[in-house]
């Protein structure tokens, strides 16, 4: 438990030391039963740690499925990824720069509409996403019926209904994740269309930014954020694309405060 300066990549290299076959991010609004899903999947094999430089606690845990060890990282519950708060920024940075093999978004079936905002924002960053519609038991009680095949068709990502409290649907979630990560199931997620003048501006920026990103980050998403004037992202991108390893990362992030190291 020695304290030291750590950066994103250090966290990741630490994660990978666990002989894990895949790192999966778990995102979702607050109060959606995200932690119940996390606990249901990982059991008691979990640790918590701080995201470097921030006082946001991340939990991670492992589970084994079809001879693969999966590491789950439970991100802070957020309503959006627009980096309005430390929580949102950490969630966004992990999905974007943490290179998770896939991201599970947990949503509350009783208020799907509000929760879908986060889902659309996640699939704007990464195509490898899975939607976990939790609390279906509660929705059923409230007389809410969701057309899951249609939702899957509209979003273009796998949709798994669950009631994590009763372990309903967790096996299907593991299987779905396995297919996306290890059987390279091709996903064609929905892309949010914006107003014409925004699309025009984005297209221009996207063309210019493309070479800098070297295919590491979704250029359309970066273009949107730059158009939005999101300055929190700029340093992160510069660090990410120039970084060749944990050491160079550390140099570029001397503003990071000493925090407890991971684990």
């Amino acid at each position, binding site marked *: 438990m020695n304290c030291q300066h750590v950066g994103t990549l250090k966290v990741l290299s630490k994660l990978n030391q666990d002989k894990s076959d895949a790192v999966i991010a778990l995102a979702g609004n607050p109060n959606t039963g995200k932690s119940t899903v996390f606990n249901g999947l990982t059991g008691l094999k979990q640790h918590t740690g701080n995201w470097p430089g921030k006082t946001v606690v991340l939990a991670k845990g492992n589970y084994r499925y079809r001879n693969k060890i999966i590491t789950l990282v439970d991100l802070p519950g957020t309503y959006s990824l*627009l980096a*309005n708060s430390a929580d949102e920024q950490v969630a966004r940075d992990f999905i974007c720069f943490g290179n998770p093999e896939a991201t599970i978004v947990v949503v509350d079936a009783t208020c799907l509409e509000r929760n879908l905002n986060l889902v*659309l924002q996640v699939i704007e960053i990464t195509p490898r996403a899975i939607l976990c519609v939790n609390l279906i038991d509660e929705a059923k009680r409230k007389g809410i019926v969701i057309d899951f095949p249609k939702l899957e068709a*509209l979003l273009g990502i796998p949709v798994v209904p669950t009631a994590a409290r009763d372990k309903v649907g967790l096996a299907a979630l593991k299987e779905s994740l396995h297919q996306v990560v290890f059987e390279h199931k091709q996903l064609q997620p929905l892309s949010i269309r*914006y107003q014409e003048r*925004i699309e025009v501006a984005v297209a221009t920026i996207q063309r210019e930014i493309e070479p*800098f990103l070297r295919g590491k980050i979704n250029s359309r998403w970066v273009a949107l954020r*730059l158009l939005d004037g999101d300055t929190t992202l700029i340093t992160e991108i510069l660090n990410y694309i120039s970084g060749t390893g944990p050491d160079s990362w550390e140099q570029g992030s001397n503003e990071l405060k000493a925090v407890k190291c991971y684990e």
Partner: protein
Amino acid sequence: MSNEENCFQGIVAQAQTAGAEVGPVRDQLVLDLYRQTQEIARQVVKRQGKKEDFDHKIDDFVTSKYFGYPLMLTLLSLILWLTVSGANYPSQLLSNLLFGFGSHLTAFCQWLKAPDWLHGILVLGLYRCMAWVISVMLPPMAIFFPLFTFLEELGYLPRVAFNLDRGFKRAGAHGKQVLTMCMGFGCNAAGVTACRIIESPRERLIATLTNNFVPCNGRFPTLIAMAAIFLSALVGTANNLLTTGLVVGVVVFGILVTLLISRLLSQTLLKGVPSTFTLELPPYRWPKMGTLLIRSVLDRTLFVLVRAVVVAAPAGMIIWILANVYIGEVSIIGHLGGFLQGFGYLLGLDGYIILAFLLGLPANEIVIPILIMSYLSEGVMVEPSSIEDLHRLLVANGWTWLTALNMMLFSLLHFPCATTLLTIRKETQSLKWTVLAALIPTGVAILVCFLVAQLARACGLV
């Protein structure tokens, strides 16, 4: 490497220019996002039966374009009316009781043959100041806090934030600022602490610096008393309804000043654009009355009262000494009041009022007791047995309706109390912002009172 970085920064700058040309990008992005989620949800989610969400229906009304604001105003008026009319009788009862006990204390001192100065400091200064603060503050707080906690527990406050969000956004501030203002109604120090819920440092500072424009519980009794005096001086009568109306008007004025100053700050010292946020409207819950009463009486009413009494006790002693130690023909308080007279007159007030506000820095509750003590030649507080008595005393000291009005305005707008300033220092970790938090409201108070006074005098109204 640095060359590449320069190129990158060039694109960033270019994107920012493009963004400025397109307009409010964030709003547009969020709007388009919400439009699409709405469309998906419409196609995918069905509700069985006609069990429409009850909360939704209430919210449609509570946050509607036409009923939202009138409802907020009505609720505010109702709370204040209940406070004003309900507090009168118990206030009188308490003051009779406490001041009655005070005369026993005097008798006791005489029996002990205690020196006059000791009796003066302890009974006429310390005890009477405490008695005044308790009898004037406790009843309104004991009514106001439970009512306010009721609305809070019911889940109404987030709806208020929702309603006012547009206004605050236009002022370049955060919608959650409304919630910190609601806390400020109870106590500005609590309001400043509540500013932690705002994530963006810029908007948190705006909320911190303007929280004082919401009158806290220490100032409500002053506002209510002054409203009654203003009305009886201007129209001859002061019933509870008119008084409430005037106090509501002052509160609304305070909110408008908050918006104006927030806007000015966000265009000058704290430049930036308001950040978007998701405000979850929690389901309405009927509060548990037992817990509500215990929580609001113990956690809030008694907490604030104890604080006020602790400050009032030494303040009462000091004021008595200032009012009874003579330099030449005049007491120290007289000298100070005379010194501030010219400045006070410019603001439509007088020297003693300015002095009372300055000496009342530790807590706003003691401003009126200080004022009464300095008006009385003997330097002893009379029993504030009724508003009429107070009115007679003030008129005898040259008060007009303008004095009462400007006293209300100055009380609403002036520098925060010492506790609030210390809290601001602790929260901002900066002396500069703490000083500004005192200077900005004071500047506004001086400006507004000056303009009102000059206008009234120029029009020959006084």
